[in-house]
């Protein structure tokens, strides 16, 4: 979805230093929207970590006598069709969603960064073949690719992560390659090469640091997108499977009770929306703070 312009993004920057960090941090702090995003993310992380403390009991154990209850003191967000506390399922669901988000960007980073570095640095035939594969993957809208992959790989947590992860890889390849191309001819890279530094060292020590800013921004936005995609797959019934409390899956099963028990769909929906929103707000804020040249 959000793509970052490749040109002029990763010009050589001033070296990392405490003062630069402080300045960027101050900029980020002034950005209220980003701060809201960061606080919300922190809340989600805390609820994921403290899930057993915040909600005692098993969020997946059915209790049919209490099914489809409206919010009460005992169940602040009501219960779903099997009488399970929606609050408890949302709290435990934050574990699933955050794990998916982290897993997806890990797949994207682990595959995308090395391929992008190699493609941009060496050029020639390697670049050509990597780029044509990337073109092919980019020929599909991201969600479509994830959907097709998950249909073939099968449903479940692991395959959801792999499918969405693969759909993110081309974006990382393009981003990193664009950056590498813009710094490859810089004097310091030339100098490193002249003194006989090995390519691996040049890539890691001299080129990679220049790519870190756009990657950080992209990662925040990608995590939001990963949660969105995973919820979408769950909603369609081909994501993480019940009884695991996944927000999208919860929303999907709540569809049948949409009109006489709207709260069952509403609360997981809000959870998804706020999670995606917070990553997008943080990503936007990071972009503004770290690089004023980003425009979109």
């Amino acid at each position, binding site marked *: 979805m959000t793509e970052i312009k490749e040109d002029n993004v990763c010009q050589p920057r001033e070296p990392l230093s405490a003062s630069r960090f402080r300045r960027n941090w101050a900029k980020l702090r002034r950005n209220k929207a980003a701060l809201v995003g960061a606080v919300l993310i922190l809340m989600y992380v805390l609820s994921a970590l403290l899930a057993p403390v915040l909600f005692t009991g098993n969020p997946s154990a059915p209790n049919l006598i209490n099914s489809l209850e409206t919010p009460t003191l005992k169940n602040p967000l009501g219960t779903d069709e099997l009488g399970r506390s929606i609050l408890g399922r949302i709290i435990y669901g934050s574990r699933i969603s955050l794990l998916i988000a982290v897993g997806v960007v890990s797949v994207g980073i682990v595959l995308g960064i090395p391929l992008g570095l190699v493609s941009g640095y060496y050029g020639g035939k390697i670049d050509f073949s990597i780029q044509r594969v990337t073109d092919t993957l980019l*020929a599909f809208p991201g969600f*479509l690719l994830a959907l*097709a992959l998950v249909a*073939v790989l099968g449903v479940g947590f692991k395959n959801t992560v792999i499918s969405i992860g693969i759909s993110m890889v081309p974006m990382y390849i393009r981003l990193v390659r664009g950056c590498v191309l813009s710094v490859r001819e810089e004097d310091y890279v030339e100098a490193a090469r002249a003194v006989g530094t090995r390519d691996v060292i040049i890539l890691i020590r001299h080129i990679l640091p220049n790519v870190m800013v756009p990657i950080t921004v992209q990662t925040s936005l990608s995590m939001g997108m990963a949660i969105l995609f995973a919820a979408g797959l769950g909603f369609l019934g081909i994501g993480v499977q019940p009884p695991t409390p996944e927000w999208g899956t919860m929303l999907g099963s709540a569809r049948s009770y949409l*009109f006489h028990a*709207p709260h069952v769909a509403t609360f997981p929906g809000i959870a*998804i929306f706020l999670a*995606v929103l917070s990553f997008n707000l943080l990503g936007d804020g990071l972009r503004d703070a770290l690089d004023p040249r980003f425009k979109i």
Partner: protein
Amino acid sequence: MLAFITRRLLLLIFVLFGVSVLLFGILMTFSPERRAATYVTSPQQAKDIPKIIKQFGLDDPFYIQYFRWMKEVLKGNMGWSLVASRPVGEAFWNYFPVTLEMNLFAAPIVIIFGIWLGTLSGIHRDTWIDHTTRILAIVGWSLPTFLFALVLLMIFYGYFQLFSPGVLSDQLTMFIIDNPETFTRFTGMYTIDGILNGRFDITLNALAHLVLPVSTYVIVVVALNMRVMRSGMIEELSKDYVMTAQAKGADKKTIYIKHARRNALLPVVTVAGQLVALSMEGSIAVEVVYNRHGIGWWLAESAVQLDMPVLMCICLFMGVVFVITNLTLDILYAYIDPRIRLN
């Protein structure tokens, strides 16, 4: 320019080939036995699986099977759809108008609304107008399509009993099925067919069914368009030629509309491809929630029931549409901005 177009067309062939190989490759990850099992309808036939594998050459080398498949696809034979219980090609033309109709209504709104809001936001930077539109944009951006669709359905249909889901009311659908001789389905799109057949009540009914899907679409997709337009406006308004125009005494409207907006429209062309991608993704959720049997619904249903020929057909179709859109946009952009051609 010609060299540029030729180069891009050659690349297009490459990508389309890659797309077909990728899709076929995904299918081939299934064992021949599993692929043969799709031909089996009753348990008694299970012993025929080796025979089926032999008959259709399911254990032949990859490239032989690929070329056999490609030959059929180019002839227009895409296989049999389990979900639609008819040939994929035939079912496709049945579902496609539903999706096309929704996009035909949504696209102009998205484009006009996005450009208008973005321009407004850019001109009145950091005022309440700007803040409101920006909040709307980030909310629209983060709101899952299926969620927003559900919320609208819950409010308007569940609470106010307005705008029922589906494509057409049951009564009118029955009428059309019962009277094929009085109502000809020229395009498959009820809004247009209604007019062509002189049945304006059908057009109006179909339009009422489009209100919620199109609104969902617009809110979710418009954000991207608007953001790009806004930043484009801000950038253009800070340029020297704007100051020159001001110094010469041009009025604000001329500066905004004639000078700045024209240049700010350029980057919008580059994200139009992403808009197409977004609307493809959006059509899946919108059609599932509003129970409109179009391409998106068919795709979702096929993914659930593992209807492989349909998945491949729709992925191929969407891939081709997406690639051709991007190519057209590239050429358009190179035409508008000659600097691109030189790279």
